């Protein structure tokens, strides 16, 4: 253990980084010495940061922890007065816990089942091939994020929802604003939120008038059936949530996964030699990612214990999933990237009742992209040293600003 790391409470969360792919030095010391730590959020409010695997899993699985940060005592996340994505209207109309949330989940789950995603996979691979061919056509060095990692998941989720992916620049702006911690002002976040809501409301109306073969249309039809479906406000909020959740995280993850695999090219070569490792390599990239973002925020209305630490009623808890994923108590050789790791019960998709709705889709996209890249561009390399990769700052979800790559012309 690194005893030289000084911990000055409250620490600033998110913790500063030295290089883009490396975890902050404080994590290990926090897990060891202070698993439930006092931190200061960008808003200036204080919260408790959970860094151990088993503690994070406990918090995420415990229904007494709510996800609504609109409670008067709950911490605000961002530097703006409204407090950022989780306390605003983004999550507003969608029930956040209990039977209401379960009903919402079960209504949506059917569009994201493993078998549905398996049926989408050939189309995703075809799109990935096309985007890679276009990237090759434009010449090198190329930004893999802009050419592949971003457009692919946008296309997939737009296709599922039945909205035009030609609007993707708009979505990107709206979703950055919704996920802002420090980058946008409160007024900008509000304006982007209102534009996005109006856009989605128009789409819901259009689908209502003329249903097509897509998720939104089917949801509307299901909602017309008595007493089962979603209200107008829930439909619009669900459309926005799916569009944002469906592209931002996955786009970032594709970029980070490729960067991590190329940062030590032996990893890439191991996959070239044995393609059967693609599935476990994707899981390990999810676990090993030190940039999963702000963490999962919960609010507790009870006095409880997290691990051995008492947590008082009224505390806002932030579960740092990436720190938990590096916990030696849960993963042997947690600091090493082991492409064959199995089982790999990482927390990158969360745990418990809110565990990611789109995880089968995300896994399918990540596996498809990696398979196609290994096939079409085996000579892929980072165009800059991994230490020079730059992170996106100021958003709840983190990724790399760009992933510059080169390859050998064939």
């Amino acid at each position: 253990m690194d005893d030289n790391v000084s911990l000055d409470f409250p620490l600033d969360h998110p913790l500063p980084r030295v290089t883009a792919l490396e975890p902050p030095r404080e994590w290990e010391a926090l897990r060891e010495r202070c698993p439930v730590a006092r931190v200061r959020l960008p808003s200036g409010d204080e919260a408790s940061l959970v860094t151990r695997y088993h503690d994070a899993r406990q918090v995420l699985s415990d229904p007494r922890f709510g996800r609504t940060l609109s409670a008067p005592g709950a911490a605000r996340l961002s530097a703006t007065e409204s407090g950022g994505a989780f306390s605003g209207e983004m999550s507003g109309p969608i029930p956040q816990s209990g039977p209401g949330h379960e009903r919402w989940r079960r209504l949506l789950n059917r569009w994201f089942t493993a078998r549905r995603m398996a049926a989408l996979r050939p189309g995703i691979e075809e799109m990935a091939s096309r985007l890679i061919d276009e990237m090759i056509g434009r010449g090198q060095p190329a930004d893999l994020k802009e050419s592949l990692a971003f457009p692919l998941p946008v296309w997939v989720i737009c296709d599922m929802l039945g909205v035009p992916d030609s609007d993707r620049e708009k979505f990107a702006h709206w979703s950055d604003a919704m996920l802002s911690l420090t980058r946008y002002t409160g007024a900008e976040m509000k304006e982007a939120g209102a534009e996005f809501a109006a856009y989605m409301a128009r789409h819901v109306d259009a689908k209502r008038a003329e249903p097509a073969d897509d998720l939104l249309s089917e949801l509307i039809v299901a909602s017309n059936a008595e007493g089962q479906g979603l209200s107008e406000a829930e439909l619009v909020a669900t459309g926005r949530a799916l569009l944002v959740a469906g592209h931002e995280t996955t786009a970032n993850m594709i970029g980070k996964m490729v960067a991590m695999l190329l940062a030590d090219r032996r990893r890439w070569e191991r996959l070239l030699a044995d393609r059967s490792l693609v599935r476990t390599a994707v899981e390990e990239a999810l676990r090993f990612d030190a940039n999963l973002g702000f963490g999962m925020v919960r609010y507790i209305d009870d006095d409880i214990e997290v691990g051995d630490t008492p947590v008082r009623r009224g505390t806002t808890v932030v579960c740092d999933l990436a720190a938990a994923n590096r916990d030696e108590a849960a993963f042997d050789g947690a600091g090493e990237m082991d492409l064959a790791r199995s089982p790999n019960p990482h927390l990158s998709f969360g745990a418990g009742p809110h565990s990611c709705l789109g995880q089968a889709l995300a896994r399918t996209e990540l596996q498809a992209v990696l398979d196609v890249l290994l096939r079409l561009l085996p000579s892929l390399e980072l165009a800059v040293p991994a230490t020079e990769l730059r992170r996106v700052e100021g958003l709840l979800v983190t990724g790399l600003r760009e992933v510059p790559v080169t390859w050998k012309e064939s």
Partner: protein
Amino acid sequence: MKVTVDQGLCCGSGNCVMLVPDVFDQREEDGIVTLLNPEPAAELHGAVREAADMCPAAAISVDEGK
């Protein structure tokens, strides 16, 4: 080996189905897990254990029996 699932805990992640489609399935209407085969053949045991360990809702139990 005997497998059981708790549909009340399951959140419909589909991960078990991706891992062992011969043993797990999801209900079409709400994505909740169903069991196709509670006593899977020996060659599937490793994958079933992995699915149980990775279930985000801890909804899969495996009794190794004898």
